[in-house]
């Protein structure tokens, strides 16, 4: 079965005065029908740019480089004329953004903004679209939807606003929803509600989700498959259970180690020393080298490809071919120079 979405060697580069920032530098993955795939990484790893690239929301000085391919429902998105891309956005692929307060226009009612989607894509009349908006609000669990639809974003709480954003995304029953840190700006309790909502709705409607987050906990709960991104590349991809049980890439290990866990002994959280290198100057060889406890000479010169570790499990690390190196951890270079991450 052809995957719903397929990225092939996506490279999105930004041309600035300080150099070319290769924010997304050769990312490939796929999302199948009905799947929820998570993309994890710290800020600056390129995960948000990837999301924006899929919807072609990247503009100069950013540019999707030649040689990239994004296929959705069999079509090559990158060669579509803009008018057709407009048909895709909000209709076949919808996006949920991080900050619900600023994502909504403060001078339009919430109902109007949801209805707008129906009017653009389904050509609904004002009245029909308004009714549809109320229906969507009900769907996302908003109490008193008729009343809420006439309210403005500033009158709603953060959680409610995010529900509105989700409602907007689901109006046209898209095949794919890209959720870029949908709960980061919300309280922890609300986070859980929103994620549950997303999971529930997508199961009902059969929507696929590309869930972008920096929070491994979120991924554990909601995604069947996970990608870990670092420095503009995918460094590990596995089924969620495999990733947590048998993480391979040292970065993933580091992330897992840095996760606070309830229960277990209370000790200091392990941190990954050093910081992400700037995208204008990715280092040669393995980009994680300076912060890696296992790095050796090979890592400095040879840029690791994605090695197949197991079924549905790949990792961009030379440890795949020289696993015995894992037995000799050392202090990462970054820590030696006295630079450590917060």
């Amino acid at each position, binding site marked *: 079965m052809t995957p719903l979405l397929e990225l092939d060697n996506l490279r999105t580069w930004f041309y600035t005065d300080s150099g070319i920032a290769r924010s997304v530098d050769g990312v490939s993955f796929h999302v199948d029908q009905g799947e929820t795939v998570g993309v994890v990484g710290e800020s600056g790893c390129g995960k948000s740019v990837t999301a924006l690239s899929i919807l072609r929301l990247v503009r100069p000085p950013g540019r999707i480089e030649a040689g990239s391919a994004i296929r959705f429902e069999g079509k090559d998105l990158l060669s579509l004329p803009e*008018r057709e891309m407009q048909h895709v*956005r*909000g209709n076949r692929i919808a996006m949920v953004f991080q900050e619900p307060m*600023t*994502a909504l*226009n403060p*001078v339009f009612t919430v109902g109007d903004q949801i209805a707008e*989607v129906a009017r653009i894509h389904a050509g609904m009349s004002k009245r029909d679209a308004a009714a549809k908006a109320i229906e969507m609000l009900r769907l996302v669990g908003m109490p008193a939807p008729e009343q809420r639809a006439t309210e403005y974003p500033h009158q709603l709480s953060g959680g409610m606003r995010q529900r509105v954003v989700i409602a907007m995304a689901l109006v046209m029953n898209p095949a794919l929803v890209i959720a870029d840190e949908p709960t980061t700006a919300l309280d922890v309790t609300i986070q859980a509600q929103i994620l549950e909502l997303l999971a529930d709705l997508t199961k009902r409607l059969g929507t696929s989700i590309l869930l972008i987050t920096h929070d491994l906990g979120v991924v554990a709960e909601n995604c069947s498959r996970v990608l870990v991104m670092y420095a503009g590349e995918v460094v590990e991809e596995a089924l969620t259970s495999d990733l947590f049980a048998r993480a391979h890439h040292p970065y993933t290990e580091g992330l897992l180690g840095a996760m606070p866990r309830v229960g277990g002994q209370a000790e200091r959280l392990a941190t990954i020393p050093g910081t992400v290198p700037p995208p204008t100057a990715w280092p040669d060889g393995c980009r994680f080298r300076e912060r890696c406890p296992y790095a050796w000479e090979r890592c400095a010169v040879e840029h690791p490809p994605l090695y197949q570790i197991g079924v549905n499990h790949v990792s961009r690390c030379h440890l795949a071919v020289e696993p015995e190196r894992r037995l000799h951890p050392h202090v990462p270079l970054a820590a030696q120079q006295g630079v450590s991450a917060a």
Partner: protein
Amino acid sequence: MRRYLAARLLQALGVIAFITTLSFVVVRLAPGDPVGTALANSNVSESVRQQWRTAYGLDRPVSEQYVRWLANAARGELGYSFYHRRPVRDVLADALPRTMLLTGLALLLSFALGITVGLLQAERANSGRDRWLGRALLLLYSVPDFWLALVILMLFAYRLPFFPAGGLVDPVLHDYLTPGGQLLDRLKHLVLPVVTLTLLSTAGIARFQRSALVAVLPSDWMRTAVAKGLSWKQAVRRHALRNALLPTITLLGLSLPVFAAGAIYVERVFSWPGMGFVTISAIAARDYALVTSGVLVMSVLVVVGALVADLVVAAADPRVRLG
């Protein structure tokens, strides 16, 4: 909202009181007086002048004159204009609508034009179109009012005599024209001053609107709009404009002074007998009552205009309206 209204009203009243006092003081402090100017003929003896002064209360202490004037003004009794030989109220009643016609038209046109141009610039920000429009607007913005008026007068009334050289109506022919002809005559006399005023105002409004739009273009909700499937142009015209119109409404309010105070230079160049023209002529004649009242009326209108504008903005912005 109600509290806001009350506070603003109070403030407005305070300002009006201040202006009233100020204009009174300023005019009184100047050397010369209306009687001296009106009866400047040396054949008139000083005692006659004194009689006039006494009759008009000009020899009373200034403070008393002030109080009297205030009381009268509150009643709408604005005094007598020596220069026009008519009550001030009548003079102003004639002049004000003329100014309002001129500036009202110009205001409407310039806002419509200005918002449109600003929009055209913003939706393709930094493109060639934007730059060229920007240059033209900057040029227009830098033009001296009176000079533009003179140049337009020169070009379109004298060199290419398409339009009359000024005035409200044709001084000779107007009364002999048919009603239709009279209307046409009035319209012809309106064209040049209105065009001049419009050109002058449009530049500032367009620049302002462009800034306001461009300031909101980076907003997250613009990104959402495009992600929903709107084209860039649609997103700008529907979402950005709605947002960026609020400051322009404020600008409208701030432009209301033009509405009331008239366009002094334009009125002068085109001999348009509006508030500005009348007030300035009164200055030369030391026509106290007219000058003071003229300034007062214009200031009151300005304050009221600003108040109205503030209220409209408050009502239009849902964040303010619904707290």
